[in-house]
């Protein structure tokens, strides 16, 4: 594998470099029919470093997708994002993402940050061949000639292990689910974005197809060195693709840390619960546990820690105030943060499983 300059950037991680994307007190609100306002994302602080792969995990309804859409300013009209999102372009310019509009916003999307959506079929125009999609995207954002577009598209398709000759002249429905997903990944990389947001990129795919998409992602990231925010409810996939993991619950990040910290030493009862609910394939029959109940309605959050009604560590104190996300001090290394007053009691016993 060739080492590119981007490959070197990957080594910079965990606070050593300047963050590519710096998110502070990020909130998303939806106006509902009754004139009420529901907060789907409730104050997220997050830094994404160059070359880093960050997984956002949690059950459905925790605000993961809303967070991703909000970052790219793709929210529906009734949604409103607030807070601070700063994107650092390589040349040193800082962009206030939430303040962008018109041309600048279009420029930010695709060029600086691109998104791969869940459900590849819906992301394509069904009456347009793949070639048409590639040309439309490039022409809308660059002055590239036809020849250049053809070459760039072919290069990226080969990178995701597809044959350009076959794929370019196909309509979306003529491709299999895995192929469509790989075409989407290729398309999202057309303008060499620094950040790629992937929303459940392999859900609904078969095991072997999912594996091929995961392998392609590994490979492409190795080559091109972009940063990735990876939204998934599948913890195994996060374990595989992420450098760092953030667990989301009821619109907040409740634990974040390196992938090994989070999977081997989770300190929030919710993260622990998620991990213990996933059946592994290797080994004998594991002892699994589910988390009782379901995520709360965002319109009527429980008082204090919003996880306390489902939490077996909960005490009365948990109902008093929402615990802040604070660094764990009693373990070596840095970057592991948790929002739980009982985090000291939370331990994952892997040998038991």
């Amino acid at each position, binding site marked *: 594998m060739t080492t590119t300059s981007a490959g070197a950037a990957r080594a910079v991680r965990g606070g050593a470099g300047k963050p590519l994307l710096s998110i502070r007190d990020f909130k998303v609100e939806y106006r509902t029919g009754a004139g009420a306002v529901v907060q789907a994302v409730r104050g997220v602080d997050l830094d994404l470093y160059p070359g880093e792969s960050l997984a956002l995990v949690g059950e459905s309804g925790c605000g993961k997708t809303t967070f991703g859409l909000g970052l790219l300013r793709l929210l529906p009209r009734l949604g409103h994002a607030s807070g601070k999102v700063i994107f650092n372009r390589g040349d040193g310019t800082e962009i206030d993402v939430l303040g962008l509009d018109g041309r600048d916003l279009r420029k930010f999307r695709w060029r600086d940050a691109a998104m791969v959506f869940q459900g590849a079929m819906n992301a394509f125009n069904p009456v347009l061949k793949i070639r048409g999609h590639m040309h439309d995207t490039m022409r809308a954002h660059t002055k590239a000639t036809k020849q250049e577009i053809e070459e760039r598209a072919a290069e990226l398709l080969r990178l995701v292990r597809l044959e350009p000759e076959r794929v370019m002249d196909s309509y979306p429905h003529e491709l299999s689910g895995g192929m469509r997903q790989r075409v989407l990944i290729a398309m999202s990389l057309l303008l060499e974005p620094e950040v790629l947001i992937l929303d459940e990129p392999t859900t609904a795919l078969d095991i072997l197809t999912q594996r091929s998409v995961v392998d392609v992602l590994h490979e492409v990231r190795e080559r091109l060195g972009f940063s990735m925010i990876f939204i998934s409810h599948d913890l195994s996939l996060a374990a595989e693709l992420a450098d760092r993991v953030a667990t989301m619950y009821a619109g907040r990040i409740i634990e974040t840390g390196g992938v090994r910290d989070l999977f081997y030493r989770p300190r929030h009862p919710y993260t622990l619960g998620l991990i213990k609910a996933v*059946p592994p394939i290797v080994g*004998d029959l594991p002892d*699994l546990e*589910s988390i009782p109940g379901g995520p709360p309605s965002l319109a009527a959050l429980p008082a204090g820690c919003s996880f306390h009604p489902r939490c077996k560590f909960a005490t009365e104190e948990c109902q008093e105030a929402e615990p802040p996300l604070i660094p764990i001090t009693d373990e070596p290394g840095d970057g592991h943060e948790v929002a739980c007053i009982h985090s000291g009691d939370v331990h994952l016993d892997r040998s038991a499983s």
Partner: protein
Amino acid sequence: MSAAAVPEAVARPLMTLSGVSQVFDTKAGPIRAVDHANLSVNPGEVLCLVGESGSGKTTAARMAAGLTRPSGGEVKYDGTDIWSLNKKDFSTFRRSVQYVHQDPYASLNPTRTIQQTLTAPLLKHGVVKGAKAAADRAAELLTKVDLTPPENYLPKYPHQLSGGQRQRVAVARALTLDPKLIIADESTSMLDVSIRISVLAMLGRLRDELGVGFLFITHDLAIAKYFGWRGKTAVMYLGRIVEFGPTPKIINAPTHPYTRALIEAIPEPDPDLTRTKSAGSLRSLEIPSLANLPSGCAFHPRCGRFEPGLCDGEVPELVGVRAGQSAACHVVARDGAEEPER
């Protein structure tokens, strides 16, 4: 537990599919969705049917449920071909075999309360007499699927419940007619991880307490492992069963290259372990079309152990490779099963 101790030869299968095929006529020509499949489920036993989309799992399940008539072969329930039954006996068979679908949003009638959904079959089939008795029985069924207290759920409509609760209602409805066999078709695949395990645990309890047999269909081997550990698993590929055996063997010591590829490919909830996985042994990622199956073994264009002349000639038969475990692979049949590395 005692049922498991009964030797296999003694237990009479509840449901048998012998040499069943299902051919669909399409514009692209006849499609063999299921080709000469042999399966059997014993009372109170779990049989997992695993495969990717298009492998014929659901088609096989629909034949087992008597929803479609096979193009060839026999579906036997309690020893009798279900398509030779008279109307009355067929209706009894239908009551004994219940289907739980994948999507509880679609399978429950949105305009009926849970009570109406559960009491309708009870009254229609005369399981109980009178509205009061039906309501009591409905409440009892809800308790069985862990929806307690039942009074909270009976007056509700499906849209007022979460996905997991809805799927529990679908299971309760399947239990209304005291089935002997439940066919669960991807019944937990739409649920969140956190909820999936509790629904599976509930199904496992029903199997133990009520002695219900399960034909459990899933694309997820990890789920098959969890639910069917004490039962058997059949792996399907493009309409054929390619490997069959006790679930622990299929998971920990698979012999067919396809099963091996599947197991190798599944990500683990463990960062170090999962990064050792790959699709490396596969030669191709694309699944052939059922309308245009490769000659010989349908897996040969993708198989890492492909041998020209051996694999692309004849279709391999499912033959025993180890005690209780069989595989349809020419190479495994010739060389014997390699012992597992772990």
